[in-house]
């Protein structure tokens, strides 16, 4: 197991290295931060001076190696705009994103899983049909649309909930539902189909013959075995959300990583873009690994050698 983790860790490093090359090259080719920073009425000399001060007049491979050398030492450079270390900015925005992600996850799982189980245990019943309708809606409605509709209905018309910014728990409701609705629908569908699959298995029949109560059969014997696809999906989704959710955070003016990413991309703030990408890829890769390890716990037949 340890050897497996070691190998995966090494692979992860290679992957992060690859990601950083791509991000570095793409940002440097596409944008010129100086053209955005300086007043358009600046002279050509001022442009040259600023480029030189920022080290942008160096060939791109030289810039990359400088970046890499510093990154190894944990220094991701100073934001071109904020006069602060780029990674510090990223870490400042992380709590808001974690808060939103956790809220969205709670919404997603607390509705998706029970409704999925209910749908599976009573297929083609009214509850199942309503559940499926929700799943269809949740997956089909893009979250920018859902977000705007929620803002219009609950904020502008009914004035029930705050619609932008970070504050108390009530500020979390709309963004969390908007962000979680797609995942909620997916979790529900996955739970339903995995449960239907498992409920047909011989050991479920055995459990029932043994005289176990229906709730024990469903929740203990069936559900645990149906968990693997759900855990895989939720793990990857969680990793994705922790990297910041651009659309939801923008619509609700939520001060998280997604906003920071958009902001730094639109201002060509390379060090910040690279730091966000680095953090997001580390989170994603570690979550992947964590999910793989979780499999062993869920299904003891799985082992890594």
């Amino acid at each position, binding site marked *: 197991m340890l050897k497996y983790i070691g190998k995966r860790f090494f692979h992860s490093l290679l992957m992060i290295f690859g990601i950083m090359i791509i991000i570095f090259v793409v940002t440097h080719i*596409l*944008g*010129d*931060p100086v*053209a*955005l*920073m*300086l*007043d*358009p*009425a*600046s*002279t*050509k*000399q*001022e*442009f040259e*001076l*600023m480029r030189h*001060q*920022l080290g942008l007049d160096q060939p791109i491979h030289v810039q990359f190696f400088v970046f890499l050398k510093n990154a190894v030492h944990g220094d991701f450079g100073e*934001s*071109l*705009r*904020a*006069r*602060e270390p780029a990674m510090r*900015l990223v870490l*400042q*925005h992380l709590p*808001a994103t974690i808060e939103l992600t956790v809220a969205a996850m709670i919404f997603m799982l607390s509705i998706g899983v029970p409704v999925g189980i209910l749908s599976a245990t009573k297929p083609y019943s009214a509850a199942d049909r309503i559940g499926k309708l929700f799943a269809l809606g949740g997956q089909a409605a893009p979250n920018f649309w859902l977000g*705007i509709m929620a*803002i*219009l209905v609950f*904020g*502008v018309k009914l*004035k029930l909930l*705050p*619609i*932008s*910014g*970070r504050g108390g728990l009530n500020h979390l409701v709309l963004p969390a539902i908007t962000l979680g609705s797609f995942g909620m629908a997916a979790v529900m569908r996955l739970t339903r189909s995995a449960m239907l699959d498992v409920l047909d298995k011989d050991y479920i029949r055995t459990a029932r013959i043994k005289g176990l109560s229906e709730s024990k059969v469903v929740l203990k014997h069936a559900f645990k075995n149906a968990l693997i696809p759900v855990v895989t999906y939720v793990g990857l989704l969680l990793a994705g959300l922790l990297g910041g959710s651009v659309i939801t955070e*923008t*619509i*609700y*003016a939520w*001060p998280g990583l997604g*906003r*920071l990413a*958009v*902001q730094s991309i*639109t*201002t*060509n703030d390379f060090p910040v873009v690279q730091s966000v990408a680095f953090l997001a890829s580390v989170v994603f890769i570690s979550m992947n690994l964590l999910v793989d390890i979780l499999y062993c716990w869920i299904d003891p037949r799985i082992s890594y050698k």
Partner: protein
Amino acid sequence: MRTKSVVFVVMVCLFVFSSHVSAQPKGTVTVAVSTDFMSLDPVGGGYTGTGQMMHRHMAEGLIEFGPDGKMYPRLATSWKLVDDKTWRFTLRKGVKFHNGNPFTAADVKFSIDYFMDPQNKWNYRALFAGHDGIQIIDDHTIDIKTKAPDPVMPTRWATRVRIFSKKFFDENGNEGLQRQVIGTGPFKFVSWQRNDRVTMEANTDWYLDPPKIKTAIFRIIPEMGARVAEWQAGGVDIIEGIPPFMVPQLKKVQNAEIQSVLGVRAMYMLLDTIKSPELKDKRVRQALNYAVDKEAIIKGVLNGTGTSLGTHVPLRVAGADTSIKPYPYDPEKAKALLKEAGYPNGFAIKLYSPNGRYPMDKEVTLAVADQLSKAGIKTDVQIMESNLYIKDLAGHNFGGGIYLIGMASAEWDVDYALNQLPSNFVLCYYPDKAVDEMVSKTRTLMDPNKRFESAHKIQKFVHEEALYLFLYNEVRNYGVSKRVKGFEAPGDELMTLWRLSVTD
């Protein structure tokens, strides 16, 4: 007699009581803005228009612009020319910073030196290329020197440079400036949650009439739709930058109003005379101007929020020649001019436009292209992501064509627009020695009458030669809740909150 004296005493009590009440600031005004401070430290690469606007509520300049575009004395009570290259500022006495430090000439010198230090990479430093140092005469007098005679120097300092406490910097360094704003302004810094909100409270010791509101909050809501929704829901009192297409609908919002004001940004199109041979011909450039129906664009695309222009100078700035009329819409004349220039069947050209850099930019470009094609010019419109567009525009990377641009004269002076003409500026697509000479001569005339007279001549030249495809002067739209009294919509981005009061 007795009744009279009782009435008198009651009146006095009421007066004392009411004046006491009115002196206490009360209520909160919340403003939604699109961008945040990049840093509380004003230098570095990220001094945005919104950043300046928020800063000036806490840290003042020597002079400040009012919403009307006029200059008002602030930390300087007066200023005069000592000789052609020296400006003398008399500083206000008895002013204290928010942390209690007294304000003196040393703070001014420190602040200006701090902004001008190349190591601090201030993004507006280019505008101060002519700065030649600052000298302290006494505790309340300073001289600012310029390398060449510079008539708009005070204007420039007024808009861009904030005065911070030297003592605070000596004790806390850069880190201090990044955490706190210690100025002398009408509001004191309370807190800043990056990308969320900036909170300030009234400075009741301000040397001018202190603010009537107790708290000012700037909330950062980047998405226009969300900003408007929050305003409609009553979550914020004032919003800026309402796009023209939303104005008619938002005028119906209850308990609020839309304030529209002629701005200081001119929208026009750069004509690339370097790479497009057709555009070298003055008759072709004039034909383009005759071929575009600006009024139709303003009416159809901008919902009437704009004023057509005959030059690239915004109408409200000092020195703008408002007697110059826009080119009338005359497609026949355009065709005749094209024929005369040797293009009886028109020619093909590319139009480039950013997407979302200016309100309705892409729609305006498409409308222009449509009208040009009616005059026989075959257009190919390229809509680009805003960043790439500016990068390629500043880098002269396009292979020739017509490029949409908007320039805001934040200094309320024609100087900024003149600044865009000479060949050493990045967006110059009409390099001409004669223009260079004309502009540099005008920009150093110290007598305002002579300077404006000369600027008028240049504007007539720009119009006559049709150096650009002139479009319109932008109108800025603000949404203001009725509970807020005293808001005056500024033509630039600089909202002023210290004159506001609230009804509840």
